């Protein structure tokens, strides 16, 4: 190995390629098992579904702009909010985090690919075709004008509405089968991430030195393995109900509708942590680099991530206070839910302590991280409010809940994902994103987000229920709804600027070089974009910041770190 120079020369058998545009296109984007290509493909489809789902969200907001509006019919409105929620969770959130994990985990642990490259490709194609199956529902039965047979039972698909008697036709089957398919993809991806992180770390990289991002993706993978099967099982049961006449959720034949809610939220609540922990992971990698300090409380960070992963498996029934569970159950789930606030608080404390006294560079990735800290804190506080069962009896199923979880998912997750995109785009493409356009994107999205979702808290407090397709005038909701819809327009402009920034920077962006941010983890030690084999020579590390050690041989980290 030592005889091969860096990078490997053209024409070497290890890098030989098929000639011709189509042959190389097919090799690189269809038959590929390269974790970097699959990672980018995941992120590209996540962004495409994000646009589709964002449009659905915009249509929902236009319908709710004025009281008694008739922009969308009630039927189409139901299909819109079902598709919006389903797409955002399963075909935007999940592919995006799978893409980040695929791209970053092998690079960060200093290896050449995932543990099971072909399984990796299988996971991607299952996810993509799951999404295509879901969207093909628009063209089934009555066709695009009537929005076809798109699912209309909500992303939570509560029984017994989903039983054949109440949802005839195929719309609910599209929902079940497409998610079954993409869940299988997520499961194999989770297996792959864990096997990669546990088995393929480069020499010297003990678990204690493993980057925190990889640690957090291990926690996420564990959660996927444990929490996704309840959904899969419940969906199989629902298929049996719908096609074989079984009675799991059939309340006419001693089946139980509440059982569905238990199974669904047994998946559904860990799912929100599955989505947000990768966001935490990005922030944890980005803040130290832009504060020029190592992460504060590394061990506490790992402990907090693991405890979030475990505790979050036992909080699901806080989505079910309004079902009427026994008081003991309500108390248990309220306490467990508040308990999650402790490790989350530790993390927020650690991020702030990392910034404290650092030489902060407010580049675009750092801006997103800073906004995330404020917004996620607020989202956490409304979360604690909703964890209190009596408060939830009043506001469960109101727009207060909608505002809360959009705060976590846009104010929290989306901001961290954009932070990640601005941070790793140079590594993946070799070019920087424009800082000027990035700042426009950032400020417009943040302003648009607050204009959209801050008023919805108040609409919710004033009693506006979720999932209604219209509302009467004179309840004090009009101003908030109008304001909220205008916010969507501002967000749309921000997203357009982002799209323009990506396309423009791909062609004309400033050349990035290997290590534009002066960072410390292994992915910045190879070229941008990395060659197919990542590292011609696999690295050996002695601390959790291997590139710091190389750049500062006079004062390396391994002198201070306990191994």
């Amino acid at each position: 190995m030592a005889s091969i120079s860096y990078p490997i020369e053209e024409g070497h058998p290890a890098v030989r390629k098929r000639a011709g545009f189509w042959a190389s296109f097919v090799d690189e984007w269809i038959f590929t098992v390269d974790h970097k290509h699959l990672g980018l493909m995941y992120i590209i489809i996540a962004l495409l579904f994000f646009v589709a789902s964002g449009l659905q969200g915009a249509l929902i907001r236009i319908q709710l702009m004025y009281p008694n509006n008739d922009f969308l019919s009630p039927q189409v409105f139901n299909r819109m909010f079902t598709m919006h929620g389903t797409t955002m969770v399963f075909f935007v959130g999940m592919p995006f985090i799978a893409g980040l994990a695929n791209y970053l985990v092998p690079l960060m642990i200093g290896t050449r690919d995932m543990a099971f490259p072909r399984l990796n490709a299988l996971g991607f194609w299952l996810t993509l075709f799951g999404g295509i199956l879901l969207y093909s529902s628009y063209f089934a039965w009555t066709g695009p004008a009537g929005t076809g047979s798109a699912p209309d039972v909500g992303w939570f698909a509560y029984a017994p509405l989903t039983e054949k008697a109440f949802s005839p036709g195929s719309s609910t089957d599209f929902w079940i089968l497409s998610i079954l398919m993409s869940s299988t993809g997520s499961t194999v991806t989770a297996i792959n991430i864990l096997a990669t992180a546990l088995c393929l770390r480069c020499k010297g990289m003990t678990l204690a030195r493993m980057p925190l991002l990889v640690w957090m993706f291990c926690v996420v993978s564990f959660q996927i393995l444990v929490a996704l099967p309840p959904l899969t099982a419940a969906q199989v049961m629902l298929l049996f109900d719908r096609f074989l006449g079984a009675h799991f959720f059939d309340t006419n034949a001693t089946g139980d509708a509440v059982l569905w809610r238990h199974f669904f939220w047994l998946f559904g609540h860990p799912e929100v942590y599955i989505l947000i922990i990768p966001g935490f992971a990005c922030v944890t990698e980005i803040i130290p680099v832009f504060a020029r300090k190592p992460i504060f409380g590394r061990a506490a960070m790992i402990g907090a991530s693991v405890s979030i992963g475990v505790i979050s498996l036992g909080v699901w029934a806080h989505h079910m206070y309004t079902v009427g569970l026994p008081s003991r159950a309500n108390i248990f789930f309220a306490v467990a839910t508040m308990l999650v606030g402790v490790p989350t608080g530790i993390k927020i404390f650690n991020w702030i302590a990392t910034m404290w006294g650092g030489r902060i560079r407010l580049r675009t990735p750092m801006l997103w991280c800073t906004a995330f800290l404020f917004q996620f804190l607020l989202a956490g506080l409304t979360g604690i409010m909703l964890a209190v069962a009596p408060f939830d009896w009043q506001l469960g199923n109101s727009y207060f809940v909608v505002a809360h979880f959009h705060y976590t998912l846009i104010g929290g997750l989306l901001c961290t994902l954009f932070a990640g995109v601005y941070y790793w785009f140079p590594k993946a493409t070799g070019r920087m994103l424009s800082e000027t356009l990035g700042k426009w994107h950032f400020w417009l999205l943040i302003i648009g987000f607050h204009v959209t979702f801050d008023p919805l808290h108040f609409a919710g407090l004033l009693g506006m229920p979720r999932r209604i397709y219209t509302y009467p005038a004179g309840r004090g909701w009009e101003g908030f709804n109008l304001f909220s819809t205008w916010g969507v327009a501002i967000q749309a402009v921000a997203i357009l600027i982002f799209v323009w920034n990506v396309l423009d920077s791909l062609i004309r962006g400033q050349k990035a070089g290997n290590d534009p941010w002066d960072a410390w983890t292994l992915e910045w030690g190879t070229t941008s974009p990395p060659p197919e084999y990542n590292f011609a020579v696999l690295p050996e590390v002695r601390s959790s910041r291997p590139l710091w050690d190389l750049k500062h041989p006079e004062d390396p980290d391994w002198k201070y770190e306990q191994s």
Partner: protein
Amino acid sequence: MSIAASLPITAIHDEARNLDRGKVGLICLILTEISLFSIFVTAYLFFIGKSATGPQPADVLTVPIWATICLLSSSVTAELAVRGLRANAKGRFQLFLGLTILLGAEFLRQTAMEWNKLINTDHLTIATNVFGTTFYSLVGLHATHVVIGLLLLLLVLLLSLGGAQMHKHERRFEILSWYWHFVDVVWIVVFTVVYVIGL
């Protein structure tokens, strides 16, 4: 580039130092399968005694002692096959692998006969009541896993009979045997839930 070039040079990845990715992968698969079975078991336990109409479990179920003996002893023969492969004793490996498949197939035959009786004599289908619903789903889910395991074992046997050098794939076969043991352990749980607690 200068940094990359100065990264210390080491040998290519040595699997000996790290965990085996196949074993880690299979343990992850088993973890997610445990979660899947737990939900079906929970549903079974939840619906015990809730069927408004018959037949009830006590009316129609008989404890499948012979099938259980077959499946559990197939774990022993699977382990003996692994040891045969490890000792590079091809005949012993093929013998015990064949026995494992026969025992697994006999288990499936017993299940098929049980279902045949339940459906045609007792008129219990998945649509009859919640007992039928949960019984066929849980036992069927397990039987599906037995079928998958049997197909994989059969593939190995055919490859070996066809002259493949199976001792080179000892690690892979061991991983497959872990899956088979898992299917057996799940049967102990299903047996306890359906034929002990539920009866």
